[in-house]
């Protein structure tokens, strides 16, 4: 698979609590709670850093998992979050005006 770039979707409200991220969709008011792994990926989703680099820098030091499995899990997770409108996923770097903040305003 070619490189994936991920960015936090706009129109979200987010708040970190007890190591987890609560995210509310501004479009349908659905509330999501991300686990630790998803939180790390969501927080690192700046649209510029490829997912494999996020995994290498942020996931592998935190979890006992081999690189190939971690990347596969991260790609699955990113696509899942994208299906809920939480992340944007692209094979090109993503630029957007201002992504949702990682903390409450």
């Amino acid at each position, binding site marked *: 698979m070619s490189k994936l770039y991920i960015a936090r979707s706009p129109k979200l*409200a987010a708040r970190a609590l007890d190591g987890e991220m609560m995210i*509310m969709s501004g*479009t349908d008011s659905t509330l999501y709670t991300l686990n630790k792994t998803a939180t790390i990926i969501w927080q690192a989703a700046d649209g510029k850093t490829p997912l494999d680099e996020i995994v290498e820098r942020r996931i592998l030091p935190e979890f006992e998992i081999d690189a190939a499995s971690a990347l596969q899990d991260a790609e699955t997770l990113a696509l899942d979050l994208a299906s809920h409108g939480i992340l944007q996923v692209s094979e090109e770097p993503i630029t957007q005006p201002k992504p949702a903040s990682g903390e409450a305003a």
Partner: protein
Amino acid sequence: MPELIAEVDRLSLVIEIGGIPARLNATDPDFLRMLEARYDGFLSASDSVAAEFDVDLSRPNFPDPEADVRVTLTSGQWSLERGDFRAQWDPRSGRGAIRQSANPYSIDSVLRIVHTLVLVKQGGFLLHSASAVRNGKAFLFAGASGAGKTTISRLAPPDSTLLSDEISYIRKQRDGYLAFGTPFTGELAKLGENISAPIAALYLLAKEDENRIEPIASVEAIRSLLANMLFFADDPELVQLAFHSACEFVDRVPVFRLTFVPDARVWELIG
């Protein structure tokens, strides 16, 4: 020759809930008398109002009387629709119009919606919860239908003052939150007292076989608060504000789960 255009007397009253006055103008004195009785205790002589509506009671004849509420923002103007009413409100001028039949329920819904729109910009909200003041402090009791809001209200001791048995009115202050009495009633059909007090705690209700208070985690508290918050607007910006309001409330107000046996002893744990 008589005048072809007769001037219609426009009558009005001001309903002040949560310290936020709203004026209703209508031409039917019987309708306004009905509202005066309905909102007794919440009428105001305030000249400066946050919202003002001209109420048109001409036969509405809406196509789907059962349609759910829909609140949308277009070109800076709110459109409020339900099967039994249509309303517009411009938050910049505070002016709006309501078209409905001569019943108190449609107006009540419009007021609830407009208050949520005003409050969300200030960090406040309406909550599906009973609320009461005891020893100078307000306590909120939230839950879905059947959770015990009416029961806990009915069991409230004489030294407490009921703010609402159904919809609590919450405003953010510099150092905490205030709960206000509301005329928005539930099964008790009893208006709350038009007073306010600092909120000391929010209890999430559950009926069980013992009286018990337990702290709950912030994530669950926020989730429950959002589930019980009245919010109608189909507007991403306001959804985000409501989410942040819930987070901030949970940061500043203790939230507990209150399981209770439906008798008066539960109030021994409160206040």
